């Protein structure tokens, strides 16, 4: 295989292509939600290190189809790290070994020749497995429906500069708005808690002037919904934030706790609001 040098690569940056590796996949296979599921061992020789993890699965699937096997089902869409569709546990880590990286942006050069790689779906009761590595994440949509929005009359877009937003607030909102809803936080949390996801939306909308009117109702409603859906409870371990491809910080959770405490206090003082 010819290796083309990347002229833009800085010395000491990511290792460039070293050719191909031979790995063994231990993949979770599950026909449907009712099927018990099991780990299947799949031999994967000749994997180009330039491939992304999803491209590697594409190649493995092509080979499986050619030999009459059943291809591995997995979620994916943009393949550029912004849609939040892809996501799987790779050797026990959400989105694999690289920090701030989605599965589609993870390259095979981070794996060693001869390595055994475990690939499993997100595991949480509110995320039931649909097939193989695909889970149903509509629980996240339900949390958003409970209050993850700003009520506004539709129509022509308002003038962008009508409402001044202080720069630090805008930055904080933007940082939290980076959440792509991939579910890695729930998958990585030893308690299968959705606190980081919910708090990212609370922080995003609660940092902006437009989000103030519904701030109390939003936090109470979204937290109640997250609990109702059966997510676990936060024990402040921090695996969520460490596994988050968008690096949503743990301080979002502290902020959500603060907002909930304040909302409850205010509601007690002014019932009916």
């Amino acid at each position: 295989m010819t290796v083309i040098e990347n002229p833009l690569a800085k010395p000491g940056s990511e290792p460039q292509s070293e050719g191909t590796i031979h790995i063994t996949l231990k993949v979770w296979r599950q026909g449907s939600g009712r099927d018990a599921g099991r780990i299947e061992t799949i031999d994967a020789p000749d994997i180009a290190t330039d491939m992304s993890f999803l491209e590697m699965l594409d190649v493995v699937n092509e080979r499986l189809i050619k030999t009459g096997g059943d291809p591995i089902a997995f979620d994916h869409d943009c393949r550029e790290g912004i849609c939040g569709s892809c996501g799987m546990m790779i050797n026990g880590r959400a989105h694999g070994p690289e920090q701030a990286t989605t599965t589609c942006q993870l390259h095979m050069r981070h794996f060693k020749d001869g390595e055994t790689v475990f690939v499993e779906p997100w595991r949480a009761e509110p995320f039931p497995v649909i097939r193989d590595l695909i889970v149903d994440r509509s629980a996240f949509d339900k949390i958003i429906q409970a209050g993850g929005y700003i009520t506004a009359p539709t129509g022509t877009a308002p003038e962008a500069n009508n409402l001044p937003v202080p720069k630090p607030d805008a930055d904080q909102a933007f940082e939290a708005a980076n959440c792509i809803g991939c579910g890695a936080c729930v998958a990585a949390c030893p308690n299968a808690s959705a606190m980081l996801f919910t708090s990212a939306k609370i922080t995003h909308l609660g940092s902006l002037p437009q989000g103030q009117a519904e701030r109390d109702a939003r936090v109470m409603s979204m937290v109640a919904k997250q609990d109702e859906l059966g997510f676990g409870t936060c024990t402040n371990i921090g695996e969520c934030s460490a596994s988050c491809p968008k690096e949503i910080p743990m301080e979002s959770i502290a902020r959500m706790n603060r907002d909930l405490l304040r909302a409850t206090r205010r509601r007690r003082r002014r019932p009916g609001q």
Partner: protein
Amino acid sequence: MTTTMTARPSLYTTTIGRKVLMAGSGAFILLWVTAHMLGNLKVWLNRPEFDSYAHFLRRMLSPPFPNTWVLWIIRILLIAAFAVHVYFAITLGLRSRAARVSRYEYTDHVQADPAALTMRWGGLTLAAFIIFHLMMFTWGWIHPGYSFDKADPYHNVVGAFGEWWMVVIYAVALFALAMHVYHGFWSVFQTLGLNNRRWDRVIRVWATGASVFIFLGFISIPIGVAAGAIS
């Protein structure tokens, strides 16, 4: 408004509210543990100092309050704090367990520290130790190699750590306590919403300081007795 946010009125119906109760009860227990440790350090002074401190505990705020009343008020508050802390630890723990019925074949962590991952097992260890500790120094049921005398606390302390394995039991329990305090101290700030990225490092340093301080303060006594410095 086309959709309405359904706001629940009560804080304690939420998991966060229950965590707030755990944080509050935990903080109260930690304050008590700190006072317990500082008081115990009087054993390093001499026998009359320690015994007079022990007697003071029974006569706190006396005469306005009859003897042992204040002690019992503190004991009842402490028992209540433990009840709240343990009850929510169990119910929230079971909830998290139910949220991940099917487990990973391969588990790994990115950064989780052992203190955070062992809160439940550490808590169980501490619960077992507390019962053992009460059986030794409050009820006097366990007294290997010495006679328990309720009126002579100094004698009981010196007698208790005559056996090397007793020092080991206390060292293990205090290590579990230090781990629990390290994660718990920081968690109080996080759960009550008093943490942010600027204060995070500082609170971690305080948490380390608090756990080391409590560990060293308490362990000095069994070691002091075993080394013959307290006799």
